[in-house]
């Protein structure tokens, strides 16, 4: 989904405004994985005033074909159901709108069978063509969707032509509304299509409603669909149009078929308040104005004590890292491998966890976090700080290259302003000083940071990744595959060995695929030292005592359809 931009603070805004002007105790009872202990029998009714989802500003989009980050996808998750779903308890792919699916031996053809009787909230049937319409729409370059990379990952035949504007529909996609089947013919074998189909961007759309509300069949203009009341097939419906910078209000979908858990939403109404400032939104919770809030890092330990038993702080499938521009002559390439290894061993991750995050995150022992099928602890060789060994590696690098670390041009420690990245950058600079490598911290404006890093303008760069769907592939491919250069592979990393392992893993299943993905991770992290994983994300959602059964999935989405209020 989502190269993480992080949660900014008011300080960021103040700095931003200044720039514009210039230009013109630990918890006794914390939650189990991902959520709260639930209590009692669900109660139907009531309103939840949510201040956590949009605690830091409004989403860029809520249309499932346009929503590219966690915040943007949150509303769509509640409005739309896809072919499959990731069970938040087990992480496994479970049937959703598609009740069964098959594939050929080499994973190049997949057939999804669509349940009969599933409807959009306006009564229109959800058909195979509803998915085909949405997939063709998202890939259409006129829509300029940032999340088109998800359906493009499937490599359905004809994808390149649609994305180039040469065709309007995917030649490899057959929607048979009579037989209620959706057939996908792929260019390359992909063994995890069912998992990828759970992603929001693969949701169906009611073509009739989209075109009626936007008054056009021109895909370019249907981008305005999200400005009105979108019709979906999920547990909630839009109670009113998106009030920008104020709220998004949803209501229970009375016609919902029940989804994989077999129940409708319990809440009558769900009000997402869009806040401009994280601390202010948390203040609203402390003041009794809100039912839920996102806990600012500085207040995390205090919140665990004050609201013991009412914090959803399970692990999230996300990684926070600092990585190298592999095309940079000073730090990239094989010649500088030992320099990168030395830097990796010099970083004090524990200091970041305590000083920056107030223990609200987990120390990363690898790139792929626990919870991803195939995860193996101890894979990463540089997880523990070892300054002696780091200095030895640096010395070996100096001998091999004839360079002197002390006389290097300072290495740029690039980061986007906000969310404690500045504190981490300071820690890193201190670590590099200890190592004997000169460095300079280079803050960047958040809105343009990743744009610049994608262009290769960074040197040693802050980044992060939250999984789009539960898959080892999604942890590695976007960030490290050659195909991701210009996109999420901000490291400009290109390795034939890594790419081949990804291709191999994609044609495998189960333990074989997992083993191959681990080899690929080993290549990127240990052999080439592209990025330095620093910490894994955890949830930080606090909720009022009247709120029951708060569950946050490893993909960071709160399951609002499972919440009830007393």
């Amino acid at each position, binding site marked *: 989904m989502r190269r993480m931009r992080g949660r900014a603070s008011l300080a960021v*805004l103040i700095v931003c405004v200044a720039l*514009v002007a210039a230009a013109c105790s630990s918890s006794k009872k914390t939650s189990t994985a991902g959520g709260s202990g639930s209590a009692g029998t669900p109660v139907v009714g009531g309103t939840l005033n949510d201040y956590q989802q949009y605690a830091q500003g409004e989403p*860029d989009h809520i249309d499932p074909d346009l929503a590219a980050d966690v915040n943007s996808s949150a509303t769509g998750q509640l409005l739309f159901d896809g072919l499959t779903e990731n069970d938040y308890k087990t992480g496994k792919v479970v049937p959703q709108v598609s009740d069964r699916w098959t594939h050929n031996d080499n994973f190049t053809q997949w057939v999804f069978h669509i349940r009969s009787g599933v409807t959009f909230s306006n009564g229109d049937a959800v058909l195979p063509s509803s998915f085909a319409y949405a997939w063709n729409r998202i890939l259409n370059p006129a829509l300029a969707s940032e999340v088109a990379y998800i359906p493009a990952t499937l490599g359905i035949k004809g994808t390149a032509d649609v994305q180039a*504007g040469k065709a309007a529909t995917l030649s490899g996609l057959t929607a048979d509304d009579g037989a209620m089947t959706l057939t996908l013919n792929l260019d390359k074998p992909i063994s995890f299509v069912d998992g990828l189909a759970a992603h929001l961007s693969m949701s169906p759309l009611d073509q009739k409603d989209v075109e009626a509300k936007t008054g056009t069949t021109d895909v370019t203009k249907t981008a305005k669909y999200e400005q009105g009341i979108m019709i979906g097939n999920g547990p909630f419906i839009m109670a009113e149009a998106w009030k920008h910078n*104020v709220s998004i209000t949803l209501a229970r979908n009375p016609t919902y078929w029940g989804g994989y858990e077999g129940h409708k939403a319990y809440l009558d109404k769900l009000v997402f308040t869009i806040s401009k400032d994280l601390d202010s939104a948390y*203040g609203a919770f402390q003041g009794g*104005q809100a039912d839920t809030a996102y806990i600012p890092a500085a207040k995390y330990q205090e919140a665990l004590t004050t609201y013991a038993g009412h914090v959803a702080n399970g692990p999230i499938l996300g990684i926070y890292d600092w990585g190298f521009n592999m095309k940079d002559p000073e730090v990239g390439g094989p010649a500088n491998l030992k320099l990168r290894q030395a830097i990796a061993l010099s970083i004090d991750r524990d200091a970041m966890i305590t000083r920056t995050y107030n223990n609200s995150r987990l120390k990363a022992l690898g790139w792929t976090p626990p919870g991803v099928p195939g995860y193996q602890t101890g894979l990463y060789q540089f997880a523990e700080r070892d300054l002696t060994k780091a200095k030895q590696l640096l010395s070996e690098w100096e001998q091999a290259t004839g360079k002197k670390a002390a006389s290097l041009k300072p290495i740029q420690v690039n980061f986007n302003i906000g969310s404690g990245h500045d504190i981490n950058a300071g820690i890193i600079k201190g670590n590099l000083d200890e190592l004997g490598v000169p460095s300079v911290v280079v803050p960047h404006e958040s809105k343009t940071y990743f744009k610049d890093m994608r262009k290769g303008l960074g040197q040693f760069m802050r980044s992060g990744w939250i999984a789009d769907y539960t898959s080892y592939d999604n942890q590695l491919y976007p960030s490290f595959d050659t195909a991701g250069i210009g996109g999420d592979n901000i490291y400009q990393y290109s390795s034939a060995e890594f790419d081949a392992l990804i291709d191999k893993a994609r044609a495998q299943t189960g333990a074989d695929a997992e083993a191959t993905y681990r080899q690929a991770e080993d290549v990127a992290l240990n052999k080439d030292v592209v990025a330095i994983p620093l910490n894994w994300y955890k949830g930080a959602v606090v909720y009022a005592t009247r709120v029951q059964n708060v569950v946050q999935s490893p993909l960071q989405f709160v399951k609002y359809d499972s919440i009830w209020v007393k």
Partner: protein
Amino acid sequence: MGGYILRRALLVIPVVVGAVTLLFAAFLVTGDPVETIAGGQRAVSATTRAQIIHKYGLDEPSYVRYGRYIGRLVRGDLGDSYKQGRSVNDILRQDAPASLRLAIWAIILEILIGIAAGVIAAVRRYSFLDALTTVSTTMVVAIPVFVLGYLFQYVFGILPNKQNLGSWARFPVQGIGPNHWFLFIPLGNQWKFLLFPALTLASVSTAVVARMTRSTMLEVMKADYMRTAAAKGLTKNAIILKHGLKNAMIPVVTLIGLDLATLIGSAVITETVFNWPGMGSEIARAAVSLDAPVVLGLTTLLVVAYVVINLLVDLSYAFFDPRIRYGGAEAR
């Protein structure tokens, strides 16, 4: 006077054109809007880039785009936001009333508290009240606005909830609430959502108004006509309010007038802390994300508001000082 007003009103045109031209030029040189339009998080394919360029007319020469923008501006069409997928007119319809209401109430509080404090301090010069005014205004000016905002939130929003006080004692921490108004008058419990954002926004200006009122009042109180008024046997209140305050008001009114125009568009911090959906934070956000149509559209409105409010301030001088006449050469 009619001619004067017309001439001043016509000044809006060059001021607006100048501001729009400056901002338009600034956005031309600050970068490529295609990535902003496409979302800014991922690389944009050549095909998508071409589609966006065509859709927004970015392939046309800048002077043609400028001409088109001015043409649309004249028709009241401010274009579409690059980021939000909705028209700037829609954004304006939502944000402008909220900003205006907050600014009006900030100004009302500024007038009530600032002028009253200034007059009391002047009349009771060197008294405890004078010292209190000096100390408190200095303190308010010194405290950063966001700190004051968070302080209000804690004392009147969070603390009463922690102490389980009744709803009468609790104020909402943030948000615009039900958004129920009659023009700018809050209806129902809307005032609870308005009070502290307005106080916060008014804080610095109130302190400045209080100090300026004090100093101008002290000047005026030395004037001959004040002694004459006292000799006539007028009561102290009548002397102060009718002769003193009225004559001391011209610089204060100028300051307040300028404040109103500024507060509409510059309440970024207050809007952020209290989550008030106004124009200031909208412009700041748009400027950072290079959303040129939003910055241009909303700034244009602010420029017009600024000119109009200044005109009204100038016209008000005649009320405070009847010797002032408008109309060029005939002015005395």
